[in-house]
C-alpha cells in the first residue's frame, strides 16, 4: 500500500470513529448510563412471577413468563420468534459448512491414536466431566440463574475441541462421537424446539380454542392454553425449560460437527511432518 493510501485510510478511520462517538454523545443511541427504556422496565416488572402477580395484580399473570431470570424470559418468551429464527441462522451456517465438506473423503487411519503426554491426558480426563456437568447445569438452570441453552451449548462445545487437541480426532470418533451421530442429536434438538413452539397450535386445532404460536403462559385473548409453570413442585417456567434443553442439545452437537470438520487427523499430520510430500502442502 502506498503512503497516500495509508494516510487517506487512517484519516477516514479517525473520521468514522469521531463521527460515531459524537453521534453517541449527542444521544443518537438513546440515554447512556441513566434511566431505563420503557420496554425494559415492562420486561423487568412482568417476567418474575412474584412481581407480576403480587404488585400488578392477578390479571397480569398472563403477561408473566414465570421466570425470575429476565434475560432468558425475553430470549425464549417475549421475543421467542426472534430467537427461533436466530437459531435458524445459526444452523444455516453449520449446514453451509457441512455442505462444503460433502464429498471430501475421510483419510484411512494406519496407527492407533496416541495424543499428547500422559500428564495432559490425565488432567483432561478429570476436566471433561466437570465441563459437561457445568454445561448441563447452565442449561437446566437457565430459567433461574444467568444462563440458558445457547451459553450451555457453547460451554459444552469446549469438551470436543479439548478432546481433539489432547487425544486426537480419532479418539473422539472411536468413542462414538461421529459426524452422523452428532447430526442426529442436533436434528433431535431442532425438532424438539419446533415441537415446543408448535404444540399450542396443534392443541388449538384439536380443541378448537384459540392459542398463539410459541405461547408459554396464557395470554389475553388465548386464555385456554398454558404450559405448566411448575413440574413436581419445581419452577420450570413453562416452555422455557424445554426450549433451553433442546437448544442445549442442538447447539452443542452443532459445534461438535463443526469442530470435527475443521480438525485434521493426527495420523495425517504426523506422516506429513515425517515424510512431507505433494499432498501434504495443503495442510
Amino acid at each position: 500500500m502506498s503512503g497516500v493510501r495509508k494516510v487517506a485510510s487512517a484519516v477516514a478511520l479517525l473520521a468514522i470513529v469521531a463521527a460515531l462517538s459524537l453521534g453517541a454523545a449527542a444521544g443518537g443511541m438513546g440515554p447512556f448510563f441513566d434511566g431505563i427504556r420503557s420496554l425494559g422496565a415492562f420486561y423487568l416488572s412482568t417476567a418474575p412471577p412474584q412481581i407480576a402477580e403480587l404488585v400488578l395484580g392477578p390479571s397480569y399473570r398472563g403477561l408473566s413468563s414465570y421466570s425470575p431470570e429476565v434475560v432468558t424470559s425475553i430470549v425464549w418468551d417475549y421475543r421467542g420468534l426472534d430467537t427461533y429464527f436466530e437459531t435458524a441462522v445459526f444452523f444455516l451456517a453449520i449446514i453451509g459448512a457441512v455442505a462444503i465438506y460433502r464429498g471430501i473423503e475421510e483419510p484411512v487411519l494406519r496407527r492407533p491414536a496416541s495424543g499428547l503426554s500422559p500428564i495432559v491426558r490425565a488432567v483432561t480426563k478429570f476436566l471433561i466431566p466437570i465441563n459437561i456437568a457445568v454445561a448441563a447445569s447452565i442449561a437446566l438452570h437457565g430459567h433461574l440463574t444467568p444462563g440458558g441453552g445457547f451459553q450451555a451449548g457453547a460451554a459444552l462445545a469446549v469438551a470436543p475441541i479439548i478432546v481433539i487437541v489432547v487425544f486426537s480426532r480419532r479418539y473422539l470418533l472411536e468413542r462414538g462421537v461421529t459426524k452422523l451421530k452428532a447430526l442426529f442429536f442436533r436434528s433431535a434438538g431442532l425438532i424438539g424446539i419446533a415441537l415446543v413452539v408448535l404444540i399450542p397450535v396443534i392443541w388449538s386445532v384439536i380443541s378448537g380454542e384459540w392459542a398463539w404460536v410459541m405461547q408459554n403462559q396464557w395470554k389475553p385473548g388465548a386464555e385456554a392454553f398454558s404450559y405448566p409453570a411448575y413440574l413436581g413442585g419445581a419452577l420450570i417456567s413453562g416452555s422455557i425449560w424445554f426450549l433451553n434443553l433442546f437448544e442445549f442439545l442442538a447447539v452443542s452437537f452443532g459445534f461438535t460437527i463443526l469442530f470435527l470438520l475443521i480438525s485434521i487427523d493426527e495420523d495425517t499430520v504426523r506422516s506429513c511432518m515425517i515424510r512431507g510430500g505433494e499432498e501434504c502442502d495443503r495442510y
Partner: protein
Amino acid sequence: MIDIEVFIKTFIVLALFGTAGVGLYGVVAKPHATKKIISLTILGDTVNALAILLGYRYPGGIPPVYTGQPPNEFVGRAVDPLPQALVLTAIVIGMAVNLLIIYIALQTYRLYGTLDTRLIKKLRG
C-alpha cells in the same frame, strides 16, 4: 476541574469506538485472510460490548435476575435486560459464522496453498 464521572464515561465510549475502528481497519486494509478474520472478531465483540453498555445504569445497577428484593427496588435498579438478550444470541451466531468463515478459509488454503488475498487474486480459479 474535570468531572471524573463524565471523564470515565467519555473514555469508555471513545475506547469502544476506537476499538471498533481498529477492527474496521483490519478488515479493510490487511491483505491476509487470517488477520481479516481476527479483525472481524474484534469488530463484532466491540459492537456487542457497546450494546451491553447501552443498557447499563450507572449508579447502582444490579443484574436483571429477581432474587427476592422489594419489587420497586428491583425494577428501579436492575439494568436493561433487552440488549443483554439480543447480545446473547448475537455472540453465539457470531461464533457460528466465525466457524463457517474459518472453515471456508481452511478449504481455500487447502486449494490454493495461501490465504494472502493479493496472491489468490493472481491465481486462476
